[in-house]
């Protein structure tokens, strides 16, 4: 991984949704960078704001009920949040592409896979008909679909679940984007197929140098393919570190709790240490640290403010007063 200028820099992103009862603060001041060629993991339980964070930087938050309350997304000298729809469209799919848990949300059931692949490259890359067709076949081969020429004439429903995921990856990568955002791409798949898809992503990254944001709730997937990890809780990033450090020496009590509550495949364990309670209602947050009601380490001071991320030792950031104090001493 090259330590250079970031490809993408998200600063203090804030997103909320207006509902009948309240203002749901889905993303509350999220900041992070993505460097060229790296995979950044975004992990957290459902509802922690992972998908909304990424929808926001793609300009895809439905408005209303959604609203961007603040922040910047720096990409190649511009703030993506300030672009109009047309400008954003030339970036989406071309420079930044997305893949989802359910491939059918990205594929048109009424068009053949070949039509969809060539439409993308003809529009974004200005390829001619023949050239686009040749490139589409190449892409299918690249993602491990054999008999590509023939399969280009098939419709999405003619592919199995794992193969459809590959088709979506082929589509996402066909314009050679700089950044691929993968939102739970393997969550619906069986583990042997998941392993194939993770291998594929790893391999494509190596060959093409694409940066990846991997959104997942599965800490195993994070450990398998991410270089750096952001842990999200209730709309905030509570810990940020390289993968090795995060798993070996988690600092935030939430991250520690997650790892302790995980049954281990590679070793036998007695009782799991569950985190008591459940995540807070984002429309009605407790004062102070949002993890406080479930935190085994909470002290009085945790009631007074929701702590900011603080750099502990060079490259390990954590948003927890207790962990920060421990280092200060």
């Amino acid at each position, binding site marked *: 991984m090259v330590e250079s200028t970031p490809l993408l820099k998200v600063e203090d992103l804030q997103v909320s949704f207006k509902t009948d009862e309240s203002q749901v603060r889905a993303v509350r001041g999220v900041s992070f960078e993505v460097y060229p060629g790296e995979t950044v993991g975004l992990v957290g*339980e*459902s509802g922690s704001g992972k998908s909304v964070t990424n929808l926001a930087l793609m300009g895809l938050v439905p408005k209303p009920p959604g609203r961007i309350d603040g922040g910047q997304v720096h990409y190649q000298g511009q703030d993506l949040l300030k672009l109009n729809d047309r400008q954003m469209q030339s970036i989406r799919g071309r420079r930044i592409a997305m893949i989802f848990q359910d491939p059918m949300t990205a594929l048109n059931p009424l068009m053949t896979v070949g039509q969809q692949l060539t439409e993308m490259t003809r529009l974004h890359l200005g390829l001619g008909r023949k050239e686009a067709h040749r490139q589409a076949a190449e892409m299918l081969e690249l993602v491990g679909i054999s008999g590509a020429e023939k399969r280009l004439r098939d419709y999405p429903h003619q592919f*199995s*679940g*794992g*193969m459809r995921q590959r088709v979506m990856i082929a589509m996402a990568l066909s314009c050679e984007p700089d950044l691929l955002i993968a939102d739970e791409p393997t969550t619906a798949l*069986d*583990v*042997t*197929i*998941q*392993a*194939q898809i*993770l*291998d594929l992503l790893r391999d494509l990254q190596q060959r093409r140098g694409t940066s990846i944001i991997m959104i997942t*709730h*599965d*800490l*195993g*997937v*994070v*450990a*398998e393919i991410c270089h750096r990890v952001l842990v999200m809780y209730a709309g905030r990033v509570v810990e940020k570190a390289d*993968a*090795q450090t995060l*798993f*070996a020496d988690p600092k935030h009590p939430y991250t520690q*709790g*997650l*790892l302790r*509550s*995980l*049954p*281990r*495949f*590679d070793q*036998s*364990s007695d*009782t*799991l*240490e*569950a*985190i*008591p*309670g*459940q995540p807070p209602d984002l429309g009605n947050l407790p004062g102070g640290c949002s993890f406080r009601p479930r935190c085994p380490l909470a002290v009085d001071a945790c009631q007074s403010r929701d702590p900011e991320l603080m750099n502990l030792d060079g490259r390990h950031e954590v948003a927890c007063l207790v962990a920060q104090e421990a280092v200060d001493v």
Partner: protein
Amino acid sequence: MSETNPSPIQSPTVAPTSVPGASPAAPLLSVEDLRVQFPFSRGSFLSPQRGVIRAVDGLSFDINKGETLALVGESGCGKSTTARAIINLVHPTSGSVRLEGVDITRLGDREMMPYRRVVQMVFQDPFASLNPRMTVGSIIGEPLAVHGLASGKDRKLEVLRLMDLVGLNPRFLNRYPHEFSGGQRQRIGIARALAVQPKLILCDEPVSALDVSIQAQIINLLMDLQQRLGLSYLFIAHDLSVVRHIATRVGVMYLGRLVELGEAESVYSHPTHPYTEALLSAVPVPDPSKAASRQRIRLEGEVPTPDREHVGCSFADRCPLVVDKCRFDRPVHRQISGSEKVHTVACWERG
């Protein structure tokens, strides 16, 4: 709502389960050469194709008192159908399902009643399996009414005891399912299953829809209840980490058949069938320092639809070790050599 350990057990007001014809020496559950086939027709009107889906294709296993047998394998391998056949929700094409020695596969609905008390089921999606218009109290109390086990004040007391047992605050007696989180709905499902004092609970992906922190609460609850009540579980899951944690024994399924069966420790530390090896090596481990060095065995392609008859081994087409014999002779389960643990594998090349 309370998530702490349930308070000490009070004795139930319901009499313990007993079934006609039970023989105390027999295993609690004994499944023998079970087959479940679903006929299908597809193709066009002019050239219809008929065939059968062999969802369960000759399955044999026992479950003893107090143990957890886990069935693992990829979607479509027949786990749920096996569970449904055990409680007679689908009719087996052949084979037998014995509860304490009594074959229940040919019993009618009325004759099945006492056996339905012995075996209960907990599902993946607690929301879909709970009636949204019934209060928690009536959901948990319903089986008591159906089986005529308790009524009036007794029933209410028993429901409160069950809620306490699964860690639900009794104050929520009159609330509706939508007012609860996923983890708590699963507690409601478990309380309802426990109401008739079953001996065996079939858990079909009971924690798959839950986030890890909540998943751990439910796994702990299931294991705690097992200890206190001497329950047996058939635990169906695709998460192999969860299974390692909860199972006494593990059966690995492929296309409706068991390819490997043994004590959990043994299967996880010495996976022997080539499919088990591939399956286990595909599980992502939450430890980057191990991820790099792990041996990976990658299968190509995907599990086919079980619409073909396999004379030999059903894994032969994808197996890296395949020899001629595998295509023509169905491998029988053999104890693996060199292991003191009970651990069998159906493979001609291994074992």
